[in-house]
């Protein structure tokens, strides 16, 4: 079973539809996804080749229950151990993995759970990524907040008590240029202690500029580490360039960012291989930049506007939990973020095992925080959402729920220096 991603909109012109169909059906009509576009910075790095070598040679079917048991007994988890823990042979050991993961999480993070919220400031996009609600062929209400609107949204969020924000845009350099994102960061610094960015990948000098504007954490999801599969999902636009995206975190660190976050979008490709590559991306980059803070996310595919059938296929909650436990055992020191794509029940459970950060008060739409937070009537002037969220708890509700679980919610553990 595969997801059926292609949806034609009645609003597209015949020319646009023809082009869309050509991209979908004729691989030769698509550009070379491994070739950098003009202006894209190329850096010297062996991280990618290290990760790919491990991923390409990973045959998870060869691991046995004995390998899994050995991995669970070892005090430090080697790459081989990690591969065993990600394999199907580890599925019967999920409870034992969870127990071990919980102990490690507790040793490194105590009982704290960090809270943050995302703020989408624009949803224009120049790419055709077939699974994404923002893709340029999807008919949705587009919007880009001006600085005044951004500040208004930030005030609403800050009033709720939130101290960490993640600023997001659709991937359009034209509509949301680096200067615009930088201005949003400057505003965010006024209202929040910690400002993260999840925007299109940029060059190291641009990351440096954004850092100077107040951002200190950069999240880039590779979507899938299988470059051939990636090519069939990202049919057009700068996002199509797989290696430029891969090196984004390293360029961000070169630009002076304190930390970087990683993930594959689980359900797009072979999730075991993608999980292996995501963690090794962290592992090898940490060896090169030992001072950097690193975190992993674990998004699964969600339904989008105009395509409510999209789902994460074989990555059920059990598999997701297995991946997260394996991440924790292999990388005891990294943050693990679980977003509102997952249910309240799953998030309540996983913060006790492996996750260290959750979002709250989430909207993936544009300019709708006031209506969502205060119940004020929706204005006409709003942009549609990137995907459907699952857990819509407010900050207060999340704060109380975490406390009730015997954990300590933390709004800020951060200083911009």
């Amino acid at each position, binding site marked *: 079973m595969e997801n059926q991603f292609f949806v034609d909109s009645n609003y597209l012109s015949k020319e646009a539809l023809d082009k869309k169909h050509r991209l979908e059906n004729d691989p030769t009509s698509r550009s070379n996804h491994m070739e950098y576009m003009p202006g894209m910075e190329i850096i010297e790095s062996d991280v990618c080749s290290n990760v790919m070598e491990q991923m390409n040679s990973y045959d998870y079917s060869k691991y046995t229950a004995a390998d899994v048991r050995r991995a669970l007994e070892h005090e430090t988890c080697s790459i081989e151990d990690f591969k065993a823990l990600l394999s199907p042979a580890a599925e019967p050991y999920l409870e034992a993995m969870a127990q071990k993961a919980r102990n490690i999480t*507790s040793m490194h993070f105590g009982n704290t759970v960090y809270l943050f919220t995302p703020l989408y400031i624009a949803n224009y996009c120049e790419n055709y990524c077939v699974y994404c609600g923002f893709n340029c062929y999807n008919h949705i209400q587009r919007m880009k907040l001006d600085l005044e609107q951004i500040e208004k949204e930030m005030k609403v969020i800050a009033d709720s008590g939130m101290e960490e924000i993640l600023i997001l845009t659709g991937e359009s350099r034209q509509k949301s240029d680096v200067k615009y994102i930088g201005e949003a960061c400057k505003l965010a610094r006024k209202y929040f*202690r910690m400002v993260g960015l999840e925007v299109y990948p940029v060059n190291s000098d641009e990351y440096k500029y954004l850092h100077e504007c107040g951002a200190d954490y950069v999240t880039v999801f590779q979507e899938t580490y299988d470059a051939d599969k990636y090519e069939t999902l990202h049919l057009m636009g700068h996002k199509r360039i797989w290696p430029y995206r891969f090196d984004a975190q390293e360029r961000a660190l070169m630009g002076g960012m304190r930390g970087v976050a990683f993930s594959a979008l689980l359900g797009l490709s072979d999730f075991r291989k993608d999980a292996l590559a995501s963690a090794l991306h962290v592992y090898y980059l*940490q060896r090169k930049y030992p001072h950097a803070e690193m975190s992993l996310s674990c998004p699964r595919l969600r339904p989008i506007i105009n395509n409510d059938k999209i789902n994460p296929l074989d990555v059920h909650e059990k598999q997701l939990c297995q991946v997260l436990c394996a991440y924790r055992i292999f990388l005891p020191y990294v943050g693990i973020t679980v977003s509102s794509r997952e249910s309240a029940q799953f998030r309540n459970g996983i913060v006790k095992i492996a996750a260290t950060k959750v979002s709250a008060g989430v909207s993936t739409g544009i300019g709708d925080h006031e209506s969502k937070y205060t119940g004020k009537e929706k204005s006409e002037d709003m942009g549609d959402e990137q995907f459907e969220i699952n857990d819509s708890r407010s900050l207060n509700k999340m704060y109380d729920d975490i406390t009730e679980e015997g954990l300590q919610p933390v709004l800020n553990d951060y200083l911009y220096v």
Partner: protein
Amino acid sequence: MNNDKLVIGEHEFDSRFILGSGKYSMKLIDAAVKDAGAEIITLAVRRANTTDQESILDYIPEGVTLLPNTSGARNADEAVRIARLARELGCGDFVKIEIMRDTKYLLPDNQETIKATEILAKEGFVVMPYMYPDLNVARDLVNAGAASIMPLASPIGSNKGLATKEFIQILIDEIDLPIIVDAGIGRPSQACEAMEMGAAAIMANTALATAGDLTLMASAFKNAIGAGRMAYLARLGRVLSRGASSSDPLTGFLND
């Protein structure tokens, strides 16, 4: 025993237990003060720097000395800036220098720590540097104006105890400042052992924070540290002390 004070800079303390900041909860602070008798509590400035929902500063009981730390600093310059911010926030003049260039093991950077100690001591801070136990570095820290030396027992949060025991003993023997064992102490027995060796105080956090019964473990630490201190002051018996001595004098053959 009553006059047995821990002296850091010009300040005197009765308690030899210091609460670390790695994991925190209001319950932990409460237990540390009430049950472990802590008079000094470490505070991560990056956490204190918070707005309204919950400021850890609000939970520090009166009479307790705040020891702000510079966690999050990656070099001397950042540590100095965080220390100055702590002072502005009203956290007093104490500062524990923590400089980590490594997010995996959180091992302190000794070189940068010396630099920061020198700058902050000159600015009038009571500087307590966290360090990897190295005698040469400890001497440099003394010369730079440190008020105590805080060597790690084993990797932070690991609960592995005195992995660096031999080297901490060397610091205790050679350095005139209080040696406060910081990081890695997981059991009261390990705290007791370090105190027997002559450590001036113990800093712990994870051992309490992750215990099944927080208040009981806090009491256990208090007793263990007290027992270790008493044993040190009482001087260990000859079999246990280093270089056990013979019961008959070896030099009895000497004439006048």
